[in-house]
């Protein structure tokens, strides 16, 4: 075996380990995936940071107003980050119509969601804080199903729910739809090992006391919704995941916007690793699982790209040389006798891993959604597995490059 085979072996082992881990968490907890502790309604302030969201802000506020939750226990605070469009004007109309809707306008454009969110939290009246994106709409039962997680355990600082793609129309949105379902399911499984590592921006519920204690959202981090959870862990708190409800969020409809969003996520994830590196093997599951998990996947992603580039260029050089020699010798470049199918044990491992991964995705889609396995959807799943996930290595490398250069914005 050469070094490429050994590396491939290690990749297969780690891949199989994580799939096995998910299966071993899933099986004993399969009846509890969609369960949630029954909570009693308590007043909640919903903070919604907003920047240039005139197209969606009205719909998002309506969705919050329509939550199945006592209206006198809800306060909606929209914090406008100096939008250039009519966002503030639209919100002002709502403040006139509903006395539990408030508008705060930031004195400057902060360029991210953390600063306006922090402004809203400080201004909030109630002990529970929900943070919602201005392009997202939670299910009506979201709050009532989530609040019990915070009430049953004093060490739970935040709770998140399943994030799903809102009206996926084009191809890239349908791929994100698959991704969101899989990520949501995995997050629920991580909940059973106290390893929820993010409370995504579209909709999450927190204890205000905990947020203030740990110092609110990090305005310098590109993924403040990941960082806040890691900081909770360092203070002895944890986050929970409610799979019984969901929030519908807008997804990028163009590759360029998708790329920009994912680069930001990867920069933010890496910032979290750097900021919390001292927690490695400390601070409970943060140091035992979350940081090693992020670090390993980052390393594997980067090294995978290097390996791919090595194999690609080796093949390219080999093809060039073969063509050159064939031309020189006046013989064929390629003959059918060169074709052979003699699979090695590594091929079997790779193939098995691919099939298990594929089945896992299909299983998740059937379990958490009414995803139908029709022709187009099967193609989407295959494309997601083979191409979409592979792009992440390139994306990660680009994100790290930008991070090192210090050239990144929201």
């Amino acid at each position, binding site marked *: 075996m050469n070094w490429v085979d050994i590396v491939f072996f290690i990749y297969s082992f780690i891949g199989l380990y994580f799939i096995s881990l998910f299966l071993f968490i899933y099986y004993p907890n399969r009846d509890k995936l969609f369960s949630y502790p029954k909570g009693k309604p308590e007043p909640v302030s919903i903070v919604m940071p907003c920047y240039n969201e005139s197209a969606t802000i009205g719909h998002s506020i309506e969705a919050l107003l329509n939550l199945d939750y006592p209206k006198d226990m809800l306060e909606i605070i929209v914090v406008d980050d100096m939008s250039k469009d009519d966002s503030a004007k639209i919100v002002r109309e709502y403040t006139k119509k509903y006395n539990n809707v408030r508008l705060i306008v930031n004195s400057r454009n902060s360029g991210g969601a953390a600063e306006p969110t922090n402004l809203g939290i400080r201004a909030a009246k109630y002990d529970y804080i929900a943070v919602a994106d201005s392009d997202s709409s939670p299910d009506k039962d979201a709050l009532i199903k989530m609040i019990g997680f915070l009430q049953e355990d004093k060490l739970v600082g935040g709770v998140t729910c399943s994030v799903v793609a809102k009206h996926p129309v084009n191809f890239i949105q349908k791929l994100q739809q698959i991704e969101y379902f899989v990520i949501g399911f995995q997050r629920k499984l991580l909940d*059973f090992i106290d390893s929820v590592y993010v409370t995504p921006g579209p909709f999450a519920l927190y204890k205000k006391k905990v947020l203030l204690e740990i110092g609110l959202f990090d305005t310098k981090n590109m993924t403040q919704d990941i960082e806040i959870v890691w900081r909770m862990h360092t203070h002895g708190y944890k986050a929970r995941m409610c799979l019984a409800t969901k929030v519908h969020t807008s997804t990028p409809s163009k590759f360029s916007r998708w790329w920009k969003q994912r680069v930001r996520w990867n920069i933010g994830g890496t910032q979290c690793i750097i900021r919390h590196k001292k927690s490695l093997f400390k601070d409970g599951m943060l140091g035992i699982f979350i940081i090693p998990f992020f670090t390993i996947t980052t390393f594997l992603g980067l090294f995978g790209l290097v390996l791919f580039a090595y194999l690609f260029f080796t093949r390219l050089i080999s093809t060039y040389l073969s063509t050159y020699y*064939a031309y020189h010798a006046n013989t064929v470049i390629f003959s059918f006798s060169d074709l052979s199918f003699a699979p090695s044990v590594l091929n079997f491992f790779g193939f098995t891993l691919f099939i298990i991964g594929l089945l896992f995705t299909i299983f998740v889609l059937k379990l958490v959604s009414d995803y139908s396995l029709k022709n187009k959807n099967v193609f989407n799943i295959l494309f997601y597995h083979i191409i979409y996930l592979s792009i992440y290595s390139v994306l990660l490398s680009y994100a790290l490059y930008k991070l090192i250069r210090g050239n990144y914005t929201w």
Partner: protein
Amino acid sequence: MVNSKHAFWQALVFTIIIFVIGLMLGLFIENTRASSFENYVSISETSLLDEQIMNKLVSDSNVSCNLTLNNTFSFADRIYTQAQSLEKYDSVSQLSDSLREIHKRYDLLRILLWNEMQVSQKRCNYQNVHTIVYFFDYNSNDLNIESEQTAFSHLLTDLKNKYPNNIILIPIASNLNIGSVNIILNSYNISSSPSLLIDDKLVVSNLPSFDELEKLVLQS
């Protein structure tokens, strides 16, 4: 909430078990492949013995030379085809060195065949029969050598297809550290692979064109 932290160990043990099963399965498949080639080698060894006896009969009893020539061709072609299929398995990742050892045995068989052919050629003085010994690097990691070898291989196949009854191809790995191969390489001053030895006289180390090779072989 049910805490499932023991899943870390369960998953690790499960993954190790799957990997061990996979490795054992891989070794089993490789051994099965090696066994089938072991059988081919045994059959070829028998054929070679037959060849040697026939050559002896030719010299002792004045039996017609042509009688043995057809057998030699058919044996050489068969051993060449088997070597090609062995190389396909050689080129994929291996957990053990079992095929490498079989490859060595094939190389030794081919050297014996070549030797028989030399003896037979001297005795019978075959016209229009040419022996090409092809020295190559086994599992070369050098892209240049690998690509050049592919071109050499195509060239020799083209030539063999054009003259099926006139050319005997004997491919031998030059880097398997076989004593007899090293002696042959030294005696013919062959220092690089790939190289051709045409009719025990002419060494070709630079990749020729098809026409050049054809000319070299037919004129040798």
